[in-house]
């Protein structure tokens, strides 16, 4: 039986701790040597849209995209053969869903990303977490982060991504095309008064877009003006305020074929909503959900919105343009996939009607 042996036991514990420390040191050393891996062949140094310096190869052989809009841009640039992987939520175009997946946008699996051996990883500030970017940086993978806040910003992102991937020519061509269409739209709408609109991101609670978001910019380009003027990106607005302001149009965005009309009919009976003139007169626009993603398809959506807001400017055309994946949404009732498409502007990761308090306090 042991007696007074505190020192002996202390020594044992120190030994145990020392082992842990040793492992740490080894890992630190291993970490040093693996960072040297980031000597990418014949690289250039670029500055991404959040000001980070990134070493990219001359031509990106393998690219991983961490956000659906970035995947769309890669496809739009015609560079999909070099797309080595994307996220679970990248669903446009259809081929994007066939690419190897690395997980979600908020929590992509770092091991999967590494195992795809990318030369370049694309991320965007509004969707991906800084921690993910830092982690990839830490192991020496070049990450190019975009941060568009306007339509022009989105087009600039297209050019930057093109430059990072080494396909400047396609990027320039695409950018010119998009700018051209927008200029054409501006001309067509010149002289028409801006329509006052409310862009509804979510109904319970009522969330709209702030004036610094790219959706607000899209609305502006389409000849509308959001009645919500605040700087907060996704402001919660009060129903009474909307009844007081009485926007001329209500805009919803949706992804799936479904029962949007049924949903809106249901909304029509609710207090507050039924007091909106736009609801009563049926001045409701259902856009394709491309409006939520800063990608080239957004311009399609802008055109669609412009047609709805200013039909007289387009009087010569009678056929509606492609909806491109538009449909009807089920507010929060759609399966996870759909909900996530709306995830960018919509409340994240917490079900609607969960209070933030529950999210905070539910540590157990």
């Amino acid at each position: 039986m042991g007696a007074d042996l505190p020192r002996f036991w202390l020594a044992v514990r120190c030994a145990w701790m020392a082992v842990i420390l040793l492992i740490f040191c080894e890992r630190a050393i291993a970490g040093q040597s693996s960072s040297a891996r980031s000597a990418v062949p014949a690289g250039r140094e670029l500055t991404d849209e959040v000001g980070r310096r990134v070493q990219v190869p001359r031509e990106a052989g393998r690219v991983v995209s961490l956000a659906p809009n970035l995947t769309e841009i890669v496809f739009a640039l015609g560079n999909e053969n070099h797309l080595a992987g994307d996220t679970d939520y990248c669903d446009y175009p259809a081929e994007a869903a066939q690419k190897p997946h690395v997980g979600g946008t908020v929590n992509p699996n770092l091991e999967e990303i590494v195992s795809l051996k990318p030369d370049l990883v694309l991320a965007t500030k509004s969707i991906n977490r800084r921690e993910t970017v830092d982690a990839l940086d830490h192991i020496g993978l070049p990450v190019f982060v975009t941060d568009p806040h306007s339509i022009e910003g989105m087009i600039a992102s297209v050019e930057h991504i093109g430059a990072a991937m080494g396909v400047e020519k396609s990027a320039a061509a695409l950018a010119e095309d998009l700018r051209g269409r927008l200029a054409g739209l501006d001309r067509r709408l010149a002289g028409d008064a801006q329509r006052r609109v409310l862009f509804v991101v979510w109904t319970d609670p009522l969330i709209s877009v702030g004036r610094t978001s790219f959706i607000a910019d899209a609305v502006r380009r389409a000849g509308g003006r959001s009645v919500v003027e605040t700087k907060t990106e996704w402001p919660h607005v009060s129903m009474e305020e909307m009844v007081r302001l009485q926007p001329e149009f209500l805009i919803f965005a949706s992804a799936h074929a479904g029962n949007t009309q049924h949903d809106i009919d249901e909304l029509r009976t609710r207090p507050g909503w039924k007091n909106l003139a736009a609801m009563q007169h049926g001045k409701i626009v259902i856009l394709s959900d491309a409006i939520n993603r800063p990608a080239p398809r957004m311009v399609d959506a802008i055109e669609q919105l412009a047609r709805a807001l200013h039909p007289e400017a387009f009087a010569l055309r009678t056929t509606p343009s492609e909806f491109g994946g538009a449909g009807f949404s089920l507010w929060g009732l759609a399966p996870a996939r759909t909900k996530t498409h709306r995830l960018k502007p919509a409340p994240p990761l917490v079900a609607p009607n969960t209070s933030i308090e529950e999210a905070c306090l539910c540590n157990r």
Partner: protein
Amino acid sequence: MQPLTLRRLLWTCGGLSALLLACVVLALKLGAVPISVTDLILDLGRIAIGRANELPTEYRLIVFDLRLPRILLGIMVGAALSVSGASFQALLRNPLADPYVLGVSSGAALGSILALIIAPGFALITPLGAFIGAIATIAGVYFLGRREGQLDSTTLLLGGIICASFFSAIIMFLMTTLTGRDLRGMVFWLMGDLSTPVSAGMQWIFTVGLIAGIGAIYSTSADLNLLLTGEREATHLGVDVTRVKLVVYVSASLLTALAVSASGAIGYVGLLIPHAVRLIFGSDYRLLIPASALCGAIAIVLADTLARTIVPPTELPVGAMTAMAGAPVFIYLLRRGLR
């Protein structure tokens, strides 16, 4: 059961350490990218003798740059939370106490949100802000929890709950001003998440803090056994109750602060692991402290491995895993009689 002897203590710790090592090897093996065990052991050997460069790069990146640091962080966090939980259960003489009962995690969350708002450009702001917030909470609750110059369990508990509620209210308010991305990141972190890499400086602070904290608490473990029978009784047996309570309070809070800064608030571990260890090994704190540390490490490593592999390639936050596994275990223990 015989009275605790040194031999029994060493055997138990040795056995649990071996189990921990096995779990670590298992965790290194499993993941989105499969690794074989024999290769792993050979590679560990190669690294140990310094021939790290012979390994294929991606493989080394995955195992040693991504998995191993995460596993080590998990070990530290598990040990810190379990020891902290066991200590608070003794300090407050309450079997429902856990590392967060005195408001440390709310303070840390508030600290990290404030840091995000004030200095969003700075890379490592979240853990630093969390740590500062936690320390401030520890000091605040200490002053709230004093009565007649020494820490009183009930007052301490009340002070902690008040602080936690107050900070949560402020957090709710502030979260409306955060942008969507930061909000998502914050919610992730609040659930408990091991995927954020910890900077080298923070690792050292964590290691030193862990050793110091567990060591300090362990030095009072015999006193804690007596303290559990009552403060008056312990005083009359020669325990310096004021000093012991202060040491345990500061050390346990420090351990919680470190764990929460690195990984957010992982729940259930600090509450349940000490009870599970008590069921198996008895309530003697001289064994409970090290056994809880080791079992907590094992639990977190296993939970994190499960979180990484259950829905590939998505990674769940480890806090979600501990909650899902923890709730049924909690119910079982309750029915058995939380002792």
